């Protein structure tokens, strides 16, 4: 049995981080499933009792890494998806709006119900993927994406950092509630990686590429911290009895 940690591009830092850890112990491997943009589509499906993916990029990477074109039920999956919330707060809509609870008087307040609807629109296919995994008896847990970054270009365009934090926290809460209902464990980001406000500390920012600003990824140092948490989770007795029993690593 292999424990696969995979997901959107945020899992690249996890891949690098895992590579830097010498004492992994169990058979834990990581790969990048593909671009998070496909999470806004119905990217999974059940076929002959297993979950596979409908997006070519995901299918290619899944098979290339695991040798199988589906989420093998013999293995355990750590999915780094569902908390990449830049997709929600980076929209220009937030340049002039705030979540109502923290709304500046000069900006448009957005009710919690509307914010929740926006978050649900972002998360719905990931949640559907989770439900399909549960339905087929595929064992998995969810690995947090890094917290939001204060240097996202949307801040220069007018989005308030307070709004970013609020949206990120609310979206995480809703995802955690969903996972709790399914009985699926969530491995949160290391608290030391975040500022007191809840943003990723600058020392964990991924490096920019030549001519291209990277404003939402974390670096391999963060990835190493996060993977240490994942490994600790896998060996702890806090994990869900169902998962722990089947993983057999608790």
């Amino acid at each position, binding site marked *: 049995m292999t424990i696969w940690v995979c997901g959107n*591009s945020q899992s690249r830092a996890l891949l690098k981080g895992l590579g830097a850890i010498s004492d992994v112990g169990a058979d834990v491997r990581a790969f990048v499933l593909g671009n998070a943009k496909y999470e806004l589509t119905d990217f999974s499906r059940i076929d002959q009792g297993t979950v596979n993916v409908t997006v070519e990029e995901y299918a290619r990477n899944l098979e290339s890494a695991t040798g199988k074109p589906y989420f093998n039920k013999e293995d355990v999956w750590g999915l780094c998806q569902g908390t990449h919330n830049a997709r929600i707060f980076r929209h220009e809509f937030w340049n002039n709006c705030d979540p109502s609870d923290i709304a500046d008087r000069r900006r448009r307040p957005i*009710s919690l119900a509307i914010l929740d609807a926006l978050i649900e*629109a972002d998360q719905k296919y990931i949640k559907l993927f989770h439900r399909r995994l549960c339905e087929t008896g595929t064992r998995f847990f969810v690995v947090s994406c890094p917290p939001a970054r204060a240097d996202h270009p949307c801040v220069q365009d007018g989005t308030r950092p307070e709004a970013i934090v609020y949206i990120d926290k609310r979206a995480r809460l809703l995802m955690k509630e969903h996972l709790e209902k399914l009985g699926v464990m969530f491995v949160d980001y290391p608290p030391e990686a975040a500022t007191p406000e809840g943003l990723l500390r600058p020392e964990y920012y991924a490096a920019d590429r030549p001519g*291209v600003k990277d*404003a939402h990824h974390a670096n391999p140092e963060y990835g190493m911290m996060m993977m240490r948490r994942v490994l600790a989770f896998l060996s702890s007795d806090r994990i869900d009895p169902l998962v722990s029993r089947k993983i057999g690593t608790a």
Partner: protein
Amino acid sequence: MMMDNPYSSMPSRAFWRSAVADVSPLEFSGLYEPRFAITRNMPIAAAGSCFAQHIARNFKSRGYRFVQLEPSPPNLSAEQLEQFNCEVYSARYGNIYSIRQLVQLFQRASGDFESCEDIWENDGRYYDPFRPSIEPNGFASPDELRRDRRYHLGRVKRLLHRTGLFVFTFGLTEAWVCREDGTVLPTCPGTIAGSFDPTRYEFHNFDYNEVLADAESFIALALDSNPGMRFLFTVSPVPLTATATQSHVLQATVYSKSVLRAVCGALYQRYGQVDYFPSYELVASHPMRAMFFQPNLRSVSPVGVEHVMKVFFAAHSSDSDTEEVRERGRRRRRQSKSDPLSHPDDVICDEEVLESAAP
């Protein structure tokens, strides 16, 4: 031999036989001849009863410059947008069934009227009495509601300044009013939200003189904001769901629609800036044989809506620009809903994905 008389020179549309009896109801000609052109660069705002939603939607989809002061949040489905009353009208005021409610809306926005009605609470959720279904499950707190209302009224205050054509669909004469200060509510307290207290609220059925006076008040305040403003009035063909009068609902409907239709006629005669579009006649008049109603004889079928819109826009477009107009509409919709699958961040993400595959 017939002698000359005023009817001799009248066009065929003036005669029942040639205009109605001898032609298919789908082919009435000259039923709507616009008093003024509605151009695609004219800023258009809309309000009114539920039928006004169709008009607003069609202006947008056909590429007209529809004023939108509370734009919709991104990535919500059409169903969700409708639930939250986003982009249904020019601001999130919901349905406005009576013209006095419209006048009071602008008076509240400008600070000229402070209503005694504030917030309705039901089961720990909070509702705006002036737009009780604007959030399908109410607001989370009184503060959240007040913040939204303050912003909303601020946008409404700007609306008339930014509008060149105001479209209003008259819906009802029956309304529920606060006894204390005459605040007109869009719904009866206790139906969608709130609770009914007969010592606090009373029923009022507006008569012709009241509706006309309110319409003239609205025209005056709109012209005060924008002297070049034009108005397009229509009457909703949708009958009353229920009447609070002692009359039969059919009789109450005919009264209500007759008053509203007569007011539109008077406004058309009195104001050169006013045009009337006969959506009521196109759906609800007897030559239409109720063919555009659903089996409940109340809801207008999609085919009926399409027919009404076709008549309206055919009168305002030439054949040659129809495709251009549609393309403009499509372009605007594409621009307004930036593709969530295409964002600069995703270039970075693609890079990350590609790099992860590197040995």
